[in-house]
């Protein structure tokens, strides 16, 4: 079973994965400190441009992946817009109460969620798990024991998907009578989880023994992929810094909304 996607390698792929991981975590944190909806709206352009032009994946795939993100945007902002607190009422109907404050706060939260999602997408689309684990052991000194176990685990996933299919077919052929209500849940756990887990545990054990038989150890080793910091990491930092500065300036000088801070102003 094939789960890999075809893509062209771009400069985002050539970044150091461990550095990328840490830097993205800081970006996530930084996003929490933006309270001006004008700024966060402009800032969203930064990851959007990267996703659209620099992930090296097919347009069609990217568009499909964007669907859930738009849903995320709509759902996270709408709940705040409809039910949030505020003083300047625009519209009221039953439980739904839209105020100016809640509207902008909702938009803000929507954009924040969109930013998180886009950054996550960039990371997922431009990082090979194998290189990430190599980089984690080399740059962040994660013990090889963990890194290589994770890589082995990644390999098991597609096999589990295939086994799930087979199991589903087998149960269909057996004509399993479906229980009703709560019992249905416990039934599916015993029917699916037990055989799938027992297969996977046995396979994981076999792989572990195979790895040890190939003299795998936690000590000193050389690396097939040497991961270093490169100019691409610098380029990315530069892009983010320049981008954020520009977007903050735009947000302050060319605001699109009247509100500048979504926190309660009292």
């Amino acid at each position, binding site marked *: 079973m094939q789960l890999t996607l075809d893509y062209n390698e771009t400069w985002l792929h050539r970044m150091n994965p461990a550095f990328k991981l840490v830097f993205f975590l800081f970006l996530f944190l930084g996003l929490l400190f933006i309270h001006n909806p004008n700024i966060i709206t402009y800032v969203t352009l930064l990851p959007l441009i990267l996703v659209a032009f620099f992930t090296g994946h097919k347009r069609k795939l990217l568009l499909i992946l964007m669907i859930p993100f738009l849903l995320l945007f709509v759902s996270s902002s709408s709940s705040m817009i409809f039910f949030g607190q505020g003083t300047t009422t625009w519209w009221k109907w039953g439980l739904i109460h839209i105020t100016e404050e809640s509207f902008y706060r909702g938009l803000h939260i929507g954009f924040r969620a969109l930013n998180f999602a886009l950054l996550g997408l960039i990371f997922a689309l431009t990082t090979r798990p194998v290189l990430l684990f190599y980089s984690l052991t080399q740059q962040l000194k994660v013990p090889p024991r963990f890194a290589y176990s994770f890589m*082995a685990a990644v390999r098991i996933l597609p096999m589990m998907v295939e086994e799930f299919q087979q199991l589903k077919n087998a149960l269909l*052929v057996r004509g399993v009578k479906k229980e009703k209500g709560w019992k249905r849940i416990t039934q599916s756990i015993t029917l699916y989880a037990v055989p799938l887990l027992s297969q996977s545990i046995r396979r994981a054990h076999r792989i572990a023994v195979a790895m040890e*038989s190939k*003299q795998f150890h936690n000590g000193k*080793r050389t690396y097939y992929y040497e991961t270093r910091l490169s100019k691409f990491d610098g380029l990315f930092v530069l892009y983010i810094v320049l981008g954020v500065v520009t977007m903050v300036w735009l947000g302050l000088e060319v605001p699109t909304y009247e509100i500048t801070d979504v926190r309660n102003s009292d």
Partner: protein
Amino acid sequence: MRVGVTNLRVKYAGASELLFNDLTLHIEKGEKVLLLGPSGCGKSTLLQVLSGLIPAAVPVPMKVEEKMIPESTGYVFQDPDAQFCMPYVDEEMAFVLENRAIPRSEMKGLINTYLDKVGLHFDDPHVEIATLSQGMKQRLAIASVLSLEPDVLYLDEPTALLDPEGTKDVWETIKKIDDDQTMVIVEHKVDHVIDFVDRVVLFDDSGTILADSDPETILSFYKHKMKEFGIWYPGIWKEHEHGLKRETKNALSVMTIEDLKGFKGKKCLVELPEAVIHEGEWIVITGENGAGKSSLLLSIMQVLKTTGDVHVDGKALHSIKEAREKLAFVFQNPEFQFVTNSVYDELAYSMSEDVQNRVTTWLQNYELLNHQHQHPYQLSTGQKRKLSVGTALFGNQRILLLDEPTFGQDAKNTFKLLEYFEDLRSKGITIMMVTHDPNIVETYATREWIISKGRRVSDRNVNRGEEAVVHAVDS
């Protein structure tokens, strides 16, 4: 002595008896030794002890007076999908070199050298392992093990899960490895190795050494023992008393297939323009791995999305539910078909009338009465298979579809199963069976379909062994 144990004792947790009781085995440098014995006699365990995996990686209680385990060992396992930890060929090869702390600059060259040794040639070895055939995966496993530069090479049924083509390739690869390489081998497919090894160690079912000698001696003096314990040996099929029942071919058609196509998504996996299947036929479906044999069975069973017609007893099948009443289906992995917690419940699951009587009769007939309260997972592989056939035939269906039922079983279990199927066939059940084993085709099949790239490329009637003999006498 290159490798060996003196007075070895091993006991698995929960087992009532010792697996080995004072077993002694010494192997010299350059020897190629074949360990032969029935399933469950402990050959694989012994191999793991000799390679040091037990107790270092697999904690099993053992005691030994003296042991000599080489510093560097290479172990090739049975399951091609459970011995790699990396997704790409070059990365997997590099994994071993990294473990040996070989400098990075030398890796690329070494990877190519070792891949060459097993006859795997890639322009760029950055190839996904998942895209390789099972036989190629096993050759990759051998290459990665060779890159350990092992003093002793251990092969634990390296071809058990391969088709005939893959088996041949793997053994040809192994035979090309340096002459002075010490090897300890466990292999059921004896035909491929018997000319290659210099020594055979024969075990009985309790893990005691029956004989230890050169292959000729073993084959000439211990054949009766091998027969008794159900061990594969060359020529076993010729001597097998297959108890073929009378042909019941009376040209009564039970199933007709027209324009059948099986799909996965929009992709057509297999197609069969037309077929008429008669009562009492034993149709064997052969072809390479991935040719579409299993897909054909799944299409007939309506598990895949299908177009076209399948009629059984004049009734068209449209859904799995309808198919289930007419066809019994046994999957490759019997464990997936078990849905209850005891052997008895498993058989009773789909029955509606006269349950107790029918289940007990079945259990008695097929020697599982003593196991009726056990969990199905606790049965041996042969018993699991038998039980899954029993559960599939709950409603007296007249057609039995089997997906590689004899895969990886020892001679005893294989023949038992085949005799069971033959017994069913003589009672009027039609059998359609996917297999890789040409011997089954020759001995049991009445008809063979060869599938290639999703199409049936050959449909021929086979003269069963018995008739062939009669024919020979006539002429």
